[in-house]
C-alpha cells in the first residue's frame, strides 16, 4: 500500500516536472483562462452601451422652422440638427444621410387638428441607420401621443380610456439573478477552460512521450499501467483546475469594471458560489483529461493526436450552448456530463438554490465515466499495439 503511494507520488512528480518545465507553453495553454474574463468584460460593456446609451443622432431637418416644439422634443431625445454635427462625425452622418421633412402647413394643420405627415428619408438597408430610425420612430410616436392625449383631455374625455388593457410584466427570477450575458459566457468559458487548459499537457504526456520513446521506458519500470495513467491524469487535470480557478478569480475582478447597475443587474461571485462552481467543475476537469489521454493514445502520431484531441474541445463549448438554447430539456440531460453541470451552473447564476442531488448525480456519472476511461486505458497500455501505435 505504502509502496503504491510512493510509486504514484514519484510518477506524479515526474509528470508535474514535464508539465511545468516549459513555462511558455504552459502560459499559452492558460491563455484562454486569462483572456476569457477580459472578453466577458468587453462584451458586457458593449452590450450595456447598446442597451442603455442613446448617442446623438444628426438629422437633416427640412422645414424645422414650422415646428419648433417638435424640434425641441427631438433634441430632448438626443436627435439633433445636422447643422450642429461635430467636425469629426460630419462625414459619418453625411453618409447616413437621414432626413426629416416637415410640411409647410404643419402649424396651421396642427391648430386645425388635421393629421400631419412627416417624411423620414434614409437608406433603410444600412445597418447603421436602423437604430437612429427606430429612435426617431419612438420619438415621433411619443410626441404624437402626448398631443393626442391632451386634445382628448381638453374635449372632456377621460384619457385613461386610451389604455383599456395594460400588461404588467412580473419577472419571477430571483432578485439577485445576474446579467444573463455574463452568466452564459462565464458558464461556457468555465467549461472550455476545463477542457482546454490541460489539453497540451495531456497530448504531450501521451502521444508526445510515445514519440520521444519515454513511454516505453516508463512501461518497462515495475509499476502498474494504472499508476502511470493516474499520474498523467492528475498532472493534466491539475493544469485544467488552475485554468478554471484563474477564470473564476479574474472574472470576479474584471466584472467590477463594468457598471451593470445601468441595466438593473449585478454580478458578485462570493466564496460559497465559487466553491460550488469549483466542486462542479472538478470532475469535469478529470473527465476532460481522461478523454484527452484516451483519444491521444488511440492516435498514431503526435500530429494526429493534436488535431483529433483539438476537435474534442469543441464538445464542451457546444453542449452548454445547445442546452441554453433548448426550451424543453429532457430529463436525461441532467445526468449527462457537461450538460448536467452547465444546467446547474445556469441555475446558480439565476440565484436558484443549488440542487445538491443533481450535483451529486451528475458528478457521480461523470466520475464513473472517468474511472471507466482510466481503467480501459490502463488495460490498453498493456498491449503493444497501443504503445507502439500499431493497430
Amino acid at each position, binding site marked *: 500500500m505504502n509502496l503504491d503511494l510512493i510509486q504514484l507520488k514519484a510518477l506524479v512528480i515526474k509528470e508535474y516536472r514535464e508539465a511545468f518545465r516549459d513555462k511558455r507553453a504552459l502560459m499559452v495553454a492558460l491563455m484562454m483562462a486569462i483572456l476569457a474574463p477580459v472578453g466577458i468584460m468587453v462584451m458586457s460593456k458593449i452590450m450595456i452601451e447598446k442597451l442603455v446609451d442613446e448617442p446623438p443622432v444628426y438629422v437633416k431637418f427640412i422645414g424645422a422652422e414650422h415646428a419648433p*416644439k417638435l424640434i425641441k422634443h427631438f433634441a430632448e431625445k438626443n436627435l439633433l440638427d445636422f447643422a450642429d454635427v461635430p467636425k469629426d462625425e460630419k462625414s459619418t452622418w453625411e453618409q447616413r444621410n437621414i432626413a426629416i421633412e416637415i410640411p409647410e402647413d404643419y*402649424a396651421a394643420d396642427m391648430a386645425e387638428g388635421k393629421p400631419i405627415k412627416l417624411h423620414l428619408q434614409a437608406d433603410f438597408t444600412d445597418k447603421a441607420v436602423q437604430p437612429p430610425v427606430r429612435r426617431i420612430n419612438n420619438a415621433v410616436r411619443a410626441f404624437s401621443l402626448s398631443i393626442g392625449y*391632451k*386634445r382628448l*383631455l381638453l374635449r372632456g374625455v*377621460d384619457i385613461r380610456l386610451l389604455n383599456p388593457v395594460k400588461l404588467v410584466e412580473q419577472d419571477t*427570477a430571483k432578485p439577485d439573478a445576474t446579467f444573463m450575458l455574463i452568466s452564459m459566457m462565464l458558464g461556457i468559458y468555465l467549461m472550455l477552460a476545463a477542457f482546454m487548459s490541460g489539453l497540451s499537457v495531456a497530448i504531450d504526456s501521451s502521444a508526445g512521450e510515445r514519440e520521444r520513446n519515454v513511454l516505453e521506458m516508463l512501461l518497462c519500470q515495475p509499476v502498474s499501467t494504472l499508476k502511470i495513467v493516474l499520474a498523467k491524469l492528475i498532472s493534466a487535470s491539475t493544469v485544467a483546475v488552475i485554468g478554471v480557478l484563474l477564470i473564476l478569480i479574474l472574472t470576479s475582478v474584471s466584472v467590477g469594471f463594468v457598471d451593470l447597475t445601468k441595466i438593473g443587474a449585478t454580478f458578485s461571485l462570493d466564496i460559497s458560489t465559487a466553491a460550488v462552481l469549483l466542486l462542479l467543475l472538478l470532475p469535469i476537469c478529470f473527465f476532460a483529461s481522461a478523454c484527452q489521454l484516451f483519444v491521444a493514445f488511440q492516435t498514431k502520431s503526435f500530429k494526429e493526436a493534436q488535431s483529433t484531441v483539438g476537435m474534442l474541445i469543441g464538445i464542451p463549448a457546444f453542449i452548454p450552448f445547445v442546452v441554453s438554447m433548448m426550451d424543453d430539456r429532457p430529463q436525461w440531460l441532467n445526468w449527462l456530463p457537461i450538460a448536467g453541470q452547465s444546467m446547474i451552473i445556469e441555475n446558480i447564476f439565476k440565484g436558484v438554490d443549488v440542487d445538491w442531488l443533481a450535483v451529486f448525480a451528475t458528478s457521480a456519472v461523470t466520475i464513473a465515466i472517468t474511472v471507466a476511461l482510466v481503467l480501459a486505458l490502463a488495460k490498453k497500455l498493456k498491449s503493444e499495439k497501443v504503445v507502439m501505435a500499431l493497430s
Partner: protein
Amino acid sequence: MNITWKNILALSLLSLTATSWANDNKLTLENCHLGEIRSQVKCGKLEVPENYQKPDGDKIAVNFAVLPAIDDSEYKAPLMFLAGGPGQAAVELATGLNRVFREVRKTRDIILVDQRGTGESSPLSCEFEAVDNVYSALPDALNPQEVKDCVAQFKGDVTQYNSENAIRDFDAIRAALGHEKLNIYGGSYGTRAGLVFMRMFPESLESVVLDSVGPIEVPIGMFGQSGARSFNLLIDNCKNSESCNKAFPNLAAEFQAVKARLAKQPASIDILHPRLGTPTKLVIDDTKFTGNLRFQLYGMEGRSMVPLVIHQAFLGNYQPLVGLMARTEGEQLVYTGLLFNIVCNEDMPRLSLADKAADANNNFDGKDSQLAWDMVCPFFPEYRPSEDFYQSVTADIPTLILSGNLDPVTPPSNGEYSAKSLPNSHHIIVENASHTVAMSTCASDIIQEFLTSKTPKKLDESCLKDIPQETFMTSVNGIQ
C-alpha cells in the same frame, strides 16, 4: 478538536436563538411583486403596539416594502421614503418611486412604509358621496351624517394614529430590518414626518432630504395665501410669455369673471360622462372651479393647461375642466380618515380666527381651502401631541431642503423655517418647479449625490438651472 466543534455548535445555536428572539415572530418579509415593477421586491409586515405606552395592549400590523439595492456588494444605509398627504400610502407609490429613485436604488435599499392608517396598515378611509360623484356633486354637499358614519366605522383607537406613533413605527421597522441608520426622504407632509423623526430618533438618521417642506412652525391646512401666490405666478408667467399673452391677454380678469359668474349662479351643464360615455350633468360653482384649478397648480403639466382652461370656461366651454377632473376621478389619492385625523388634531387647533381670516384674504380661492377642515374636524376624536412636538427641530444631521418656487401648498418660505433651525442644512429653491421637486426634476440626481457625500452645501446644482420656464398650451389642438 472536539471542543472546537462543540463551541461552534453552541455558537450557532446562540445566534439562532438571538435572531428569533429579536424578531419574536413580529416581522415577516417575503419576495413579492409590487405595482408595475418588473423584478421581484420584498414585502413585509411588522407587528407594533397600537399604543406605545401600552406595549402589551392591542397590536397593529404595519405594512412595508423594500426595493432591494441592485448592487448590494457594498452595504450602504437604505433610503426610507416618507409619504405625503398626510394619508398617502408609500407602498402604493412604489412604481413611480422605483423610477424616480433608480439611481439611489443602484446601491441602496429603498424602504416604503404604509404609515399607520394608510394602505395596508389598518387604513382609515372615508367614502364621501362628493368624491364618488365628482361631476354632479358640489363640494359643500358633504353632509355631517356622512362624516359621523365614517368616524364610527373606524376600528381601534383612532387617537393613536398620530404622527409621533407613525415615526415610532418607522424606527421600529428600521431596527427590525437590522439597519443601524437610515437616510430619509420626506415629500410634502413627509417632511413634517421627517422633522418629527429627526427630533425623536436623531441617532437613527444618517441624512435627511426634505422636499417641499411642511415645517412644524407652519400649520398644515392653510393654503389660501400659498395657493394665491402660486396662481399669481402662473398669471405673471403667462403675461411674460409671448404666445400665452397673445392667446390670453386678459387671463386674470377672465378668471375673476368666471368665478363671479359661478358664485352668483352655479352652472349645470349636460355632458357625456368622460369615462362611461353616458349623459350626465356637470354641476359647478366657484368653489369647485377654483378647487380643481388649485389641484392643477401642483404639477407643471397641469399648470400648462390652466390658462386655456380658464379662457375656455370664460367662453362657456367647461370640457377642458371636465377632462382635467377625469384624470384622477375614482382614484383614492389619500386615505381621508388619516388625513383629517392628523390635520384636525395636530395643526388646526393652533390656528386662531385671525390666522384664518388672514389666510382667506386672497384673490384666488378665498377661504375655500379651509372649508373641508371646518366641516369635518368637529366630528373627529380629539388628541393633542406632546409639547415637544411644536418645538423647532434642531437636530445636527446633514439635511438637504428642496422647494419649488411655484408650489401652491408648501412655498419656499416654508423651507426657510427648517433651513434656519437645522444647523447642517442647505435650502435649494428650484425656480421653475412646483410641488415635490424631486419627483419631476433632476433634483433626484442631486439627492443621489447628497446621499453619497452628505455635504448639503457642496452639491452640484447646475442641472436645476436648465429647467425651462413654464410654458402654456394656447390651443385645444395642441402645440405648434
